[in-house]
């Protein structure tokens, strides 16, 4: 009996270690130094967080509109194609809608059989258009090339909360803070000074579903959309993950009893 008790306490120890690893490793892996002088972003509840997290289709569709009308003026999102917009787990526009959205852009294709490049309307297979042909052109026009937004939600610490905070974090520089012309002050940007001017103002993007188009709402929607562009398979991942977990827990249970049975002649 006593042996069994010791046995069990050792096992719980191992589980505790696994749990500690699950919780502690991300802490260890996060360079706290990277946060440095940065202000902790505003923490929001996002529908895609958690084990059963899914995207909010309406938020994705509104977010796409904000992206297209505001962000895409300066930023690219080269990894995203129009056809992604109709795939399951995303904004799930209809095929007709996606074809119409794609047809709005002009794509240079070719060479054709005479060796000439030609222009054609966009198709669902095409990538989101980039506002500038290359980074140098972007830098020449804007002073600095704006980063590609495809995976931006994963490319910053506390990604989505940071993006949201940045979008709503524009304020006047505090008294005595010297701000060079052409630059803006933002509470949440590391170092506070950035080249991107305040992108959103109340009522800027017309929402078709009647949602109030405040800065906060638009920031939330476009962040939601950018999380999807970064993790288009998130819903599939969560769904499969839940099934795998159920399977593994059951399997562990069966293996536990099978093992006890096998070892029973040794105790």
């Amino acid at each position, binding site marked *: 009996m006593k042996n069994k008790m010791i046995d069990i306490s050792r*096992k719980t120890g191992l589980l505790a270690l696994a749990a500690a*690893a699950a919780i502690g490793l991300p802490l260890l892996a996060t360079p*706290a130094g990277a946060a440095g002088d940065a202000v902790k972003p505003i923490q929001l509840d996002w529908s895609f967080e958690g084990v059963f997290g899914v995207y909010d289709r309406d938020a994705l569709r509104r977010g796409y509109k904000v992206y297209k009308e505001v962000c895409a003026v300066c930023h690219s999102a080269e990894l995203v194609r129009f056809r992604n917009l109709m795939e399951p787990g995303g904004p799930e526009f209809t095929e007709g809608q996606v074809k119409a959205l794609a047809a709005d852009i002009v794509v240079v294709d070719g060479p054709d059989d005479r060796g000439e490049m030609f222009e054609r309307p966009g198709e669902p297979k095409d990538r989101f258009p980039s506002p500038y042909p290359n980074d140098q052109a972007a830098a020449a026009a804007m002073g600095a090339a704006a980063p590609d937004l495809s995976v931006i939600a994963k490319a910053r610490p506390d990604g989505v909360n940071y993006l949201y905070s940045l979008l709503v974090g524009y304020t006047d520089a505090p008294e005595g803070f010297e701000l060079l012309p052409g630059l803006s002050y933002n509470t949440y940007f590391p170092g506070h000074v950035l080249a991107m001017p305040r992108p959103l103002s109340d009522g800027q993007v017309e929402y078709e579903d009647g949602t109030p188009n405040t800065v906060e709402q638009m920031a939330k929607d476009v962040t939601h959309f950018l999380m999807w562009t970064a993790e288009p*398979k998130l819903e599939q*991942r969560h769904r499969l993950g839940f099934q795998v977990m159920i399977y593994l*827990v059951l399997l562990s249970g069966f293996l536990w009893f099978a*093992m006890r049975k096998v070892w029973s002649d040794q105790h």
Partner: protein
Amino acid sequence: MSHQSTYTPGNAFSRWMDERLPVMRLVNDSFVDYPVPKNLNYWWTFGAVLSFCLAVQIVTGIVLAMHYVPTTELAFASVEHIMRDVNYGWLIRYVHSNGASMFFIAVYIHMFRGLYYGSYKAPREVLWILGVLIYLLMMATAFFGYVLPWGQMSFWGATVITNLFGAIPLVGEALRTWLWGDFAVGDPTLNRFFSLHYLFPFLIAGVVVLHIWALHVTGQNNPAGIEVKDPKKDTVAFTPYATMKDAFGLAIFMILFSYFVFFNPNALGEPDNYIVADPLVTPAHIVPEWYLLPFYAILRAVPDKLGGVVLMFGAIAILFVLPWLDTSKVRSARFRPLFKQFFWIFVVACIGLGYCGGQSPDKILIAVGDGGFDVTDLSRILTIYYFAHFLILFPLLGLIEKPKPLPESIAASVLGSEPAKS
């Protein structure tokens, strides 16, 4: 504990085969009939977990290599192509990237288990050395692999690590250029790292075979740290006893693995690696993956670059001579009261070094006036302890410590016939 083969071919075909290539005899003797000490606890299931990790990395890695493009222009985009367009590519890639971390969690537990129970001592020195060699190969493989997605941390990590070789006197510069294949980290570097990243796991697999061979010659160590006396009383057959226990341990480990893959796949990585490598923009803090952080802390603890490189590699090199630094005849820390305490201090020191490696070196931990006790100070103390643990405490403890009485036999330790329990 190498034992006489008990294999008897059951049918005409296996008899025919046994006289030509006794592969079924080998499998039977190694994984079925093979006697293991009956007192092994769950810390001994990590050998199976590690074999699983290696297999997972090789299988997912081969599939990834079918879609990955090792050029600076296309590497990042090809990884994203895997994540977006390849069927279940996101799953394969996340299993592979998190699999590296899981592999290191398992190998660290496996190594600390070896330290705690004295598994490196005679007659298992070669077994231990082969293990350290595997660990070294794993670190090289992980480093090469981390460069492949060609994000900011990939590029700058590769730059920092390859620059270390530049610190070697006389030949350093030339060696570094030779490693790069260029005058900076670039296309030739990425291409050769991909080639080596594909090669090294098979070297690991080769050394694993030697590791298991050496294990089967000496037999397993065990929590009591005493040798098998009577195989009938002290051991059980590998199958079904150890196989079932390993299977259960592995299933639990897979739950942890799946948690990261499905619900927190980027927690162990750096956000900066989702930014395409840019040689003109240095990230604010260049940090390696978590499993290399303790060595990174040792590197930065030394004010002199060459000295830092020497100590960093020395921290791994010292593990090779461990069996000859320990003067105690008693293996298991269960019977070594002093060693046991220092073991846990060593664990804390290693975790502390890992913490230091992830922090900015001038971060103040305890403020005193304008300055104070910063991360560099802490890493220096911990680095000194790391080496002192092996170079001073290992020889010393064996001489001054009075070990507790050892159990008569493995069977006796399992049945609890020690005086305290009767």
